[in-house]
């Protein structure tokens, strides 16, 4: 390790890419100075990479905070509507009542009672309003055409984990990253959501269409 590299390593915690100067070159350069210069450049690249990563993380966190602030405002606005109207709006989006019940943490019969005009507590009304507001924001911000279908789409092919599961666990941050396609690999999102899921849903069996046209389960070919 060169002396410059060592110095940089010692002061790494505070050094930024702009503070590191690449040594000026002279007309009579030696192998030693070239190696030293290369070491400085490599270090600067490493620090730059860390800074970019940190900036990206900060930007993601800010984006989530901004989205959640807007979502809270929109939720307050939507909560002015009645429970029945909110459910009509979610129905028009194409949600199943089972999903709505799950997201609001009530039973399906409770949702049916609300649809028929039964009263709900403020906490549930707010949860419904939040879902309506979220649909509107996802549609407006990320141009998602069919939010209900998008939320029912598996994150990773073959794994029964969807945007609805992220939402049920209040992982708006992961949902936004998925919507923005900031992550090249959705498997990273799945890993971050629950590292045990990949193992849980890896199976040597598969669903196939049997000779009678109905689905069945069999050993996977490969």
């Amino acid at each position: 390790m060169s002396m410059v590299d060592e110095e940089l390593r010692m002061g790494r915690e505070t050094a930024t890419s702009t503070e590191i100067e690449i040594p000026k070159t002279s007309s009579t350069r030696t192998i030693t100075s070239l190696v030293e210069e290369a070491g400085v450049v490599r270090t600067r690249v490493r620090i730059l990479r860390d800074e970019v990563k940190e900036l990206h993380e900060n930007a993601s966190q800010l984006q989530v905070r901004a989205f959640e602030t807007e979502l809270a405002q929109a939720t307050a606005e939507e909560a002015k509507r009645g429970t029945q109207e909110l459910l009509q709006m979610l129905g028009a989006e194409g949600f199943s009542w089972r999903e709505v019940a799950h997201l609001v943490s009530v039973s399906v019969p409770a949702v049916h009672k609300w649809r028929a005009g039964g009263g709900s507590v403020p906490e549930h009304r707010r949860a419904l309003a939040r879902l309506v507001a979220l649909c509107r924001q996802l549609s407006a911000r990320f141009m998602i055409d069919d939010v209900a279908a998008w939320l029912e789409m598996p994150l990773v092919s073959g794994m029964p984990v969807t945007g609805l599961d992220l939402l049920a666990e209040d992982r708006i941050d992961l949902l936004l990253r998925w919507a923005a396609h900031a992550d090249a690999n959705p498997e990273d999102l799945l890993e971050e959501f629950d590292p045990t899921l990949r193992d849980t849903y890896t199976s040597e069996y598969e669903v196939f269409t049997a000779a009678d046209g109905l689905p069945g389960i069999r050993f996977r070919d490969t």
Partner: protein
Amino acid sequence: MTEDLEAPASAEELYLARGTGISQARPLMTGDVVRRVDIPGVEVEGDAIILQHPCSMRKDGVNLVDRLLAARVTASDDVPFDRWPTGYFGRMPLPDLYGEGNHASASFDDIGLVPASAIEGAERIASLGRKGINLLQQRFVFYLTRFAVPTFQLDRVAAAVFEEADLLEEWTMAALSRGFDPREAAHEFHEWIRADDGTGEIRQRRLAEPQGLSAVRRALRREVERLMGNQSS
């Protein structure tokens, strides 16, 4: 990979509805518990749970097959959720079936074919939800074959049928609330779900794909409004 039998996180996760929460508009389905039904060949008295697979319950999509496979349900001790994967393989625990703290179990030793008319005429006291039905099937298959099928695979097999049952319930519920005949409504629903959706695709086939579900639900809600609107019979 999941190799053990699975368990619910709570009793609530197991049931779709119990007691007064059960919708009369819901079609009979695997995992429904009915009160006091004779099971031919079973001497123990009690209630019964439908074991028949969701895909083979109806012969024409509307009418039930002549006889349905069912298991006897009786009051029993509680089976803690952490014991579900490691024991009690001969039964399906039904926690809080008869009210909080009043548990029951379905016995896979006491099964038989019950005339569908007897089940249709009996009082439904509980309906398992999707997770509950998958767990029931997992335990029954394990009892019969010692083979533990992951519930997420079982769910994939019956997903379209579960979705169709939800849609039929919604359609029938709308019909009942407007005073229409539920049987007639069920027939109308089956005609509608088996029809082309206008793109050359049969609606019922769209239920097999998660991406097609929301469009079918939206279309159903529009159709219900168009057919029934604010009218009453």
